Each structure stands twice: as structure tokens, then as C-alpha cells.
């Protein structure tokens, strides 16, 4: 494997209030092969954006080393910049300029000649389905159009590596799917894509390989498939009438053959069994006999959330920055991304909330 991105023991601290430095990244090492889509998956405040910003020269590296496209990020930041593209959570297109003007300026800043840039801008506009409104001001774009332009801005100079920070935040399902197609298209053209996400489905469906990060360290990595196989078995969630009964149910189930990784979450008992469907009737009978009726249940094949849970002891959905809980937190609900939850970690941005609703065109 030829590594296009290689980082060793990256560390970053931010000065906090009184002597409380926040260690945002604590020894992250990673390798990304040419032409793959790598997903950096983790909750808000896990250090994803900070790592990305160090790799893209935006933030000084405290400790450790990083090479991107064969160049040392610390020693040759200027040359690294010329070889990479970067799309932040905020995008950063000029609202008062048209899509074409934005792309042209970007291409010229990367040193492209006028004629070459004009040609490439035309191509990119076509490729990202932006041609129809290329000469309208960005202010009038819808959320999905805007996001496609942001990504187009990141690739107009044909970089070897594209960094995407939470690319689909705030997009509706249809626009997300379309964006994923565009990102796959980039990979198929040979671009290496490094993206951060806190959406399980995005990591699962889009990424060739995933690194799960939590509290500034990588806790697991592999292909989505391999990661899920680590969990070996199906997840079963049994919801009882109250927390007390949940505890008693857990005690009943604990000794059963084939039952593993038993945890209690409120009124629910979560466990894993190699063949969930076959094990379920027996478990239900057992609880029934003990006078602990089950109100509802869920049986699912292992998801990336199960991987996260197994590695960190928490569910990814609940693992956001405790200092700033997301408003209106939802009940666990597989496969549905919670839209528009901004990264609250101190080193990360404020509230990007990328055009939650489609703007009026």
C-alpha cells in the first residue's frame, strides 16, 4: 500500500481556562492509501476536526509528524497546500460572487493559468451539476447546491488528496445521497478522500475504511465490514417496564449460554448473541417466568454503533461533548442521522449548521 497520508503520534493541546489545557488529540497515528475513502468517525469533540486541521496545515502540530502526498506537513506547509484540497464544515464560498467566479478565483489562487482554469471550472461545474446556475450569486443557492459548490471548490485544482470536514451535515437524505455519489466519483478518478463524520450510515455506506476516534485517540480501524465482524453476533435490545426490572432482567440473563456483553441502559437491556433470532424465544420465556415482561424488543445485525459501544462503553449518539449536550437528543434509532448537530468541542468551530433548510432559489 502506498500511503498518501501518513501521521505518527499526532498531538494537540489547546490552552483552556486556568491551567486546564484541553488535549484534543492524543497520539493519533494513521495511514491512508492512494485512492481510498477514509472515514474518521467519532462523536463531536473527539478530535476529528483538529486532526484534519493539523494535516491540512491550518493548525500547528504540537507533537508527532505528518506527511501528505510525500511532503512533510511541518516543514513544507506551502507545498502541501498546493497538493491538497480542503472543504471545511462551513464551506466558505463567497456569497456575493457567482459559483463560476468562486471557482475561477480558487483555481487561479492555486496558480492555474487563466485559460486552463476556465476550462477546468467548466468541467467541474458540469461534473457537480452546477452548470445550470453557475452565473448566479451563491447567496441564491439551496443547501445541496451550496454543498456541491463547496466540494467543487476543493477539487478545482485537481488535488491528490481531498479533505472533507463533516461533508453532509445539514443536508436532506436526497442531497446526501447525491453528495456521496460525487465523492465516490472523485475516488474513481484517483483522488484520495479523507473525511470526518459523526454519521454512522455515512461511514458505513461511503467509506472504504474507517477509523473510529474518541477522546483524541483512535479506538478501532478497518473496513466497515471487518469492524462489524469484530462484534461477532447480533445485538438484542429488550425494553422492560422500569429501570429496576431492567436490572433484574440483566441478572437473570447474565448466566445464559451464548449471551455476551450485557449492559443496562435505562429501562433497556442490551446484549449480544451469536444467533440472535434463535436465542430470542428462550430469553423471552426466561424473563416471563421470572415475572419480568418485555414491553418491546429489537434485534439487529451489528452496526458501527455497536463497534463504538464495544470500544468505548458508550453509544456514539450519546457520546457528544458533555459540556454542550445537543438540544433535543433523540432516542437511539438506527440509521437515522441527527441533522445539524454542530461540533461543540472548544477547538472546533461554533455552529456551522449548513443551511438546514433548502434556501429559496
Amino acid at each position, binding site marked *: 500500500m502506498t500511503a498518501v497520508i501518513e501521521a505518527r503520534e499526532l498531538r494537540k493541546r489547546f490552552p483552556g481556562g486556568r491551567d486546564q489545557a484541553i488535549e484534543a488529540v492524543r497520539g493519533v497515528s494513521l495511514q491512508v492509501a492512494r485512492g481510498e475513502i477514509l472515514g474518521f468517525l467519532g462523536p463531536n469533540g473527539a478530535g476529528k476536526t483538529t486532526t484534519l486541521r493539523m494535516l*491540512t*496545515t*491550518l*493548525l*500547528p502540530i504540537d507533537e508527532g509528524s505528518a506527511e501528505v502526498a510525500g511532503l512533510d506537513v511541518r516543514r513544507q506547509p*506551502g*507545498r502541501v*497546500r*498546493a497538493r*491538497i484540497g*480542503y472543504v*471545511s*464544515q*462551513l*464551506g*466558505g*464560498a*463567497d*456569497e*456575493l*460572487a457567482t459559483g463560476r*467566479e468562486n471557482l475561477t*478565483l*480558487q483555481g*487561479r*489562487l*492555486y*496558480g492555474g493559468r487563466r485559460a486552463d482554469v476556465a476550462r477546468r471550472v467548466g468541467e467541474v461545474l458540469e461534473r457537480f451539476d452546477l452548470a445550470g446556475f453557475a452565473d448566479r450569486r451563491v447567496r441564491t443557492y439551496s443547501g445541496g447546491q451550496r454543498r456541491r459548490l463547496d466540494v467543487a*471548490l476543493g477539487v478545482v485544482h485537481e488535488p491528490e488528496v481531498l479533505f472533507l470536514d463533516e461533508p453532509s451535515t445539514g443536508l436532506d437524505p436526497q442531497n446526501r445521497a447525491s453528495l456521496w455519489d460525487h465523492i465516490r466519483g472523485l475516488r474513481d478518478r484517483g483522488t484520495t478522500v479523507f473525511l470526518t463524520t459523526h454519521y454512522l450510515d455515512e461511514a458505513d455506506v461511503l467509506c472504504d475504511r474507517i477509523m473510529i476516534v474518541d477522546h483524541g485517540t483512535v479506538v478501532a480501524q478497518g473496513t466497515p465490514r471487518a469492524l462489524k465482524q469484530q462484534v461477532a453476533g447480533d445485538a438484542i435490545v429488550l425494553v422492560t417496564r422500569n429501570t429496576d426490572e431492567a436490572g433484574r432482567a440483566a441478572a437473570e440473563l447474565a448466566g445464559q449460554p451464548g449471551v455476551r456483553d450485557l449492559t443496562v441502559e435505562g429501562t433497556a437491556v442490551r446484549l449480544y448473541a451469536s444467533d440472535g433470532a434463535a436465542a430470542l424465544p428462550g430469553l423471552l420465556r426466561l424473563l416471563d417466568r421470572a415475572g419480568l415482561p418485555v414491553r418491546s424488543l429489537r434485534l439487529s445485525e451489528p452496526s458501527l454503533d455497536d463497534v463504538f459501544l464495544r470500544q468505548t462503553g458508550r453509544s456514539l449518539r450519546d457520546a457528544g461533548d458533555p459540556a454542550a449536550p445537543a438540544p433535543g437528543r433523540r432516542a437511539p434509532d438506527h440509521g437515522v442521522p441527527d441533522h445539524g448537530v454542530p461540533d461543540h468541542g472548544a477547538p472546533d468551530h*461554533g455552529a*456551522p449548521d449548513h443551511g438546514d433548510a433548502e434556501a429559496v432559489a
Partner: protein
Amino acid sequence: MKALTDIGLLFRRHLVQLLRSPIWLVVGFSTPILYLALFTPLLKHLVGMPGLPAGNVLDLFLPGILALLAFASGSGPGFSTIFELRAGVTERLRVTPASRFAILAGPILASMLLMFCFDAVVVAIGAAFGFHVHAAGLLLLCVVLALLMATMAAFSIATALATGDINGFAAVINGLNLPVLLLGGVLLPISLGPEWMRVLAHLNPLYYTVTAARVLAAGTFTGPAVWQAFAVLTPLCVAVLGWATAVVRRAVA
């Protein structure tokens, strides 16, 4: 070479942005005109009083307005910087290989061009009401104004990048504005004040600009005011630009 191209590209970008926000153009043009229209009448009866130079009231007051305009045009760019920081524009530009100095100089030069347009309007209106135009003096004055404006603008942008939010930035800029304006002798010559004020004024770059502006606008090139202005403003401008470029280089927000 790349730096020059980048300066040109980013200059154009900012100019287009400025021209597409008509509200700022209106405010930009109306402020100096309001000063002329609403303040000059107050001065009419002061001319000839002890401590004030004799002569036409506009000859005395208009150069101060030009200096004020340079100062105000210089404070402005930081506000766009805050906005662009929030919108991710600054970050997008910083991750391109564009020259760090160009990222700073582009917006400064665009605002400067606009400032000279405002200046021209002020001088034209002033001339219609009796301001004596000395072309050569005004031309050299443009250089002094450019130095002050660039210094202030670089300071404003760097402060915006360093504070990263509108509250901190506005506090610094507003906190600075009042003493600098009052000790600059923009509206009334500082020579009217007590000695401690005159001493304090010598720490103020705006004071040198205003004093030089009065002398140059009168068509005089000799005298301490002119060389003093250059001696103070040139190194200050270079130092602040250098510092601001360093801030752009390592800006985090």
C-alpha cells in the same frame, strides 16, 4: 511573482464584494459629506480666534476630514474579516497556496481604492465651496493617507483574526477610536489644548497625518510636519504589516 498575482486576484475579489454591497457604498460616501455639511458651519465663527490658524474654514477643516477618512477606512476591513472567519472564507483562502501577505494586502488595497474615491468626492465638493486645491500637495498627501490607512487596516484585520469574534474585536477598535480621534486634532487643532495634551498627541499616528495633511493641502512641502509624518508612519506601517502577515500565517480560528 506569485505574490503579486495573488494580490491582484484578492484585490479584485474584495473590490467586487465591496461594490456588491451597495449599503456600504452609501454609508461610505455619506459620512464625509455629513461632516462637511454639519460640522463646517460650526467652525465659521472660530476662524481667526487666538490659537487657530487664519484662513478659509474649509482649508483648515477639510484636510482633517481626509485624515479621518483614512483612519475610518482603515478600521473597517476587520469587520469583514470577522464575517469571513465565521463563514469559513478565511480558512478556505488560508489552505490555498496563496501568499499570506496577499491574503492581507488584497482587502487593504481594495478598501484603499474606495477611500481615494471618497476623498475625491470630498475634495470636489469642498472645492465648490471655497477649498483651495493644491494638486501637488494633495498628491503627496495621498501617500501619507495611504500609509495611515494601510497601518490601520492591517491592525484591524490582525485584531479581527486574533480575537476571532465580533465582541472582542469591536471592543478593541472602539476603545481605540475615541482617544485616537480626540488626540488627533481632526476636528479642532490640538494646538488649542494644554501642554500635556500636545505631548500625548505626539504618540498618535493620526496626529502626524492630520498635521501633515493641513500643511500639504496648503501646497507647502517643507517644514517639520511633512517629514515627521513620513518618519513616523513609514516604519509603523511596515511593522504593523509584518505583524499582521504573521497573524494571518498562524491564525487558528
